[in-house]
């Protein structure tokens, strides 16, 4: 009896271990694939690199916690970005003040044109950080490759709103880029 019982217990424990190992493995694959996406997404919403680091770690912890369910969701990546955005909002709220930049406060030296994708990404993130919160979130999700309908679902806004916000965000980015001297299409020298 006791043997039987212990075997049954062993089996349950073994099953649990196997299950955990399986989840860890699929989760690890997920992180390998999407870690950069999460970081880039957060980077576009927050200038403070330390906070981006903390939030991405916290978000991935939450993903792991729910991984058994999340892996079955239609778009685990979209879900992860939403969780990351919620955590970021909490962090920003605790800090109290969003970094406020005034264009006329900054005496910006002329920005050099980015030469590789990473630099271009950073420049873009700098501009998106200056957008109003919702615009930034919509733009950042869109750049992470989420379709408009998914963005509407994740941000809890209507599809109509996503399309309109994207259009306006695009106009603002254009202004910011031009203000920094990025006017002439590539192939010609910047003036």
């Amino acid at each position, binding site marked *: 009896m006791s043997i039987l019982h212990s075997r049954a217990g062993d089996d349950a424990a073994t099953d649990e271990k196997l299950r955990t190992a399986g989840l860890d493995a699929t*989760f*690890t694959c997920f*992180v*390998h694939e999407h*870690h*950069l996406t999460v970081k*880039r997404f957060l980077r576009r919403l927050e200038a403070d690199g330390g906070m981006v680091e903390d939030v*991405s*770690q916290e978000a*991935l*912890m*939450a993903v*792991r*916690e*729910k991984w058994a*369910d*999340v892996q079955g*969701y*239609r*778009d685990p990546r*979209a*879900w992860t970005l*939403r969780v990351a955005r*919620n*955590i970021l909002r909490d962090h920003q709220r605790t800090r109290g003040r*969003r970094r*406020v930049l*005034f264009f006329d406060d900054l005496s910006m030296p002329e920005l050099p*044109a*980015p030469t*590789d*994708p*990473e630099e*271009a*990404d950073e*420049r*873009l993130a700098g501009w998106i950080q200056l957008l109003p919160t*919702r615009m930034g979130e919509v733009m950042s999700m869109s*750049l992470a490759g989420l379709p408009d309908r*998914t963005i509407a*679902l994740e*941000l*809890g*806004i*209507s*599809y*109509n*709103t996503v399309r*309109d*916000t994207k259009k306006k965000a695009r106009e603002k*980015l*254009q202004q910011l*880029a*031009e203000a920094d001297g*990025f*006017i*002439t*299409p*590539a192939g010609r020298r*910047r003036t």
Partner: protein
Amino acid sequence: MNLDDILELAAARTPSSLDRARARRAAERVLREYAEATAEGRNLLGDLDVEDVLAPDADEATRITRVAQSAKTGWIKWTAATGELTWSDEMSRLFGYPAVTTHVPVETLIKGVHQEDFTRVKELVEQGWRHQIPQEFSFRVLRADGAMRYAGCLVELLGDDGREPTGIVATVRDITRQELERQEIDRRRRRRVTETDLPGRDTVSGMLGRDRFADELDRAARGGQGTLLVVAVEPDRELSEAQSEQVTRTVTGILDEITDSLCGALGSGEFGMVLGDVGHAREVAGAVLGCLHQRRTLAISAGVRLRAWAALVPFARADRAGGQDLLLDASWAWREGRRDGDMLKELPGPREAGTREAATRRMIAAMVGDDRLCLHAQAILDLTLNEITRHEVLVRVLDEHGRPELPAAFLAVAERFDQIGAVDRWVVEQSLALIGQGPQTSHHQINLSGRTLSRPGLAEFVIDALDRHGVDPRTITFEITESAAVDNLAAAAEFAAGVRSRGCGLALDDFGTGHSSLMLLKYLPIDLVKIDGVFVTGLRDSAFDRIAVRHVVQLCRELGVRTAAEFAEDAATVELLRDMGLDFAQGYAIARPLPMAATPAAAAELAAG
């Protein structure tokens, strides 16, 4: 390169080997910490919303309100078919109601939107509905308890898959803290633009002016001990303005070379320094005098010779002598030295207060009695008519050689030792006499100290003088200078009523810098306010000055008072003043003060020499 190029380049980013290593480390770290957290039984999700929103069963409204709920945002929903309004607990709380009902009457909503924002909010919502676009805006919430909150609001149209909209859902956040923060940042930014450094640098020498130097000296005297050195430089003839400036620059250069101590250009050829112990001060004084002597013949155009005297006044906190007292003592001392042929006069310490006062009073009385004062007149431009219609009568002090000097220091001392009344009476008598002899075609403005106003019999004296000299009272305005407080408002009001009943005008001088100017404007029948030059000289560059002048003009216009600006030093400033709606401008851009005489011919003669 433009935005499209950057978007394209950024999109081409793929994980580098470094990125891949980071991802591996991140995964390991998450798994490690997750294992620890589970072992400790910690809750990793907190109040995070972790449902999969992609669940296809929910309609748009349900999804939006549920996400709002989890983001701790309020929402309110309007259904077109039924006209029904429902709101969330969070929204109910934002409007100051207990979270008990989900259905809300439209009146409650209307009452909750600040009256001044209501029309705008209504228009935005209607516009959004008509054009089928989302609207984002902020408005003020007037809570049931009367408190006010700022709310940020996103109004969205409901309607699955682009069909006819079926309703509206608005998600609303309390943004009071952010809004106040924004307002504060905005306010600070405005303040940064209007903040202005303390004035008080002499424009020629770059040193502190007399008042600022006296303040600093005062601070030194209260703080401990030291020695005041005053050097007085006298040219051997009358100098042009350019020559005087050259002399000032020469002396400034010498002082700069010799000492790093606090220096001031005190006016009328006097320079002050605050030094340490007497021994050191003596050395500095010797060096300065030596230098000035070596340069007896200064390299200025006409080969002007300078003579220099100096006085040393050691001070200590126990002497209880203020900055102005020490300057008076030093001034008195070097004059004593000059009389005795003593180039450097050293006092053992500040004079007794009583001695100082008696001596100063005697000096002022002697100057008034011996007619060592004279009158100048400066033209004032009527900005509407664009012609000179008025003159201000200005007093000048004659130096030992009969040369007129600026009277600022003299007047300050006279005011301080309560001798200004005698000076004012002299000015009134002499100017009315000159005006009476002339054609009386211009309006004249005569200064009276705030102190003099409350002296008994002043109105009678003035009216008597007007009659004696046959001056039309309607061509005279008395300017009340506010360098000293009006010490008896009732007496001042009586004077004002007296001279105004005869037709004289009343002006408030130095407006904005004197004592309780707004109160005088309230209680005295003032016809004209003269805005102090401090706010006019920097008008073109200073945001503060422009705002201050614009609003003083507006204030005065509403009060039925005319406005004038002093120290209009260039044509652009005069134009600016005209645009700002001032009635009069006075200053070097219009005319310099000229010796006053009964007739233009006599004035020309006086000016010539």
